């Protein structure tokens, strides 16, 4: 259990990158990007975890209870919401690319000269 979560992070990263490189549809590419971003949340929370500790909310446990790291949880929390909005911006760009060029294939879009 020592490094297994971090190996899973590397796996998700590699799989997401593979999906982006071999994608034939812009929306498929964006979904692979979402999977890639999720690997960073797992990494953040994995770094902050302490075995046998509780969640850092002290409303019903005594204040000296060992708890996991709250700073990485704060980072991951804002991360999740903000990257959803950035994904929406990417989707808007994909819609405009479709309207302009008529195709959503990234390998064909490279060859168009506008």
């Amino acid at each position, binding site marked *: *259990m020592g490094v*297994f*979560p971090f190996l*899973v992070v590397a*796996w*998700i990263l590699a*799989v*997401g990158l*593979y*999906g982006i490189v071999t994608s*034939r*549809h812009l*929306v*498929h590419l*964006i*979904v*692979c990007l*979402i*999977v890639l971003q*999720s*690997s960073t*949340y*797992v990494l953040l*929370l*994995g770094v902050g*975890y302490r*075995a*046998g*500790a*509780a*969640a850092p*909310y002290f*409303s*019903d*446990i005594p204040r000296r209870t060992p*708890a*996991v790291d709250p700073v990485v*949880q704060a980072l*991951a*929390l804002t991360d*999740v*919401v903000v990257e*959803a909005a950035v*994904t*929406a911006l990417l*989707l808007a760009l*994909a*819609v405009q690319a*479709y309207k302009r060029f*008529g195709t*959503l294939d990234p390998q064909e879009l490279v060859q168009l000269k506008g």
Partner: protein
Amino acid sequence: MTPDLLAASALAPVPAGLMDALQVTILVLVAAGAAVVVKTRDPVRQVVLLSFYGLLLALLFLAFQAPDVTLSELVVGAVLLPVLLLLTLTRVRRREK
């Protein structure tokens, strides 16, 4: 004292070995889910699988004692992102009708 379901479930006394087994199981499922989402080529099917993947991630975050991140990931991954993706797919399919 505010009873809160998520905080209570994250704090429920569970033997250490059981929590380890739970985390390993969900990690394996998440790794498999990521591979399946990437391998699917049809975007509409991918969106459905993405919302299952979001649910698995939310369970993983809960097992990592992070109820706040669970809440965000649950709503974003299972509701908002699939809705945005499906609206985009509707828009790019209208031409082909």
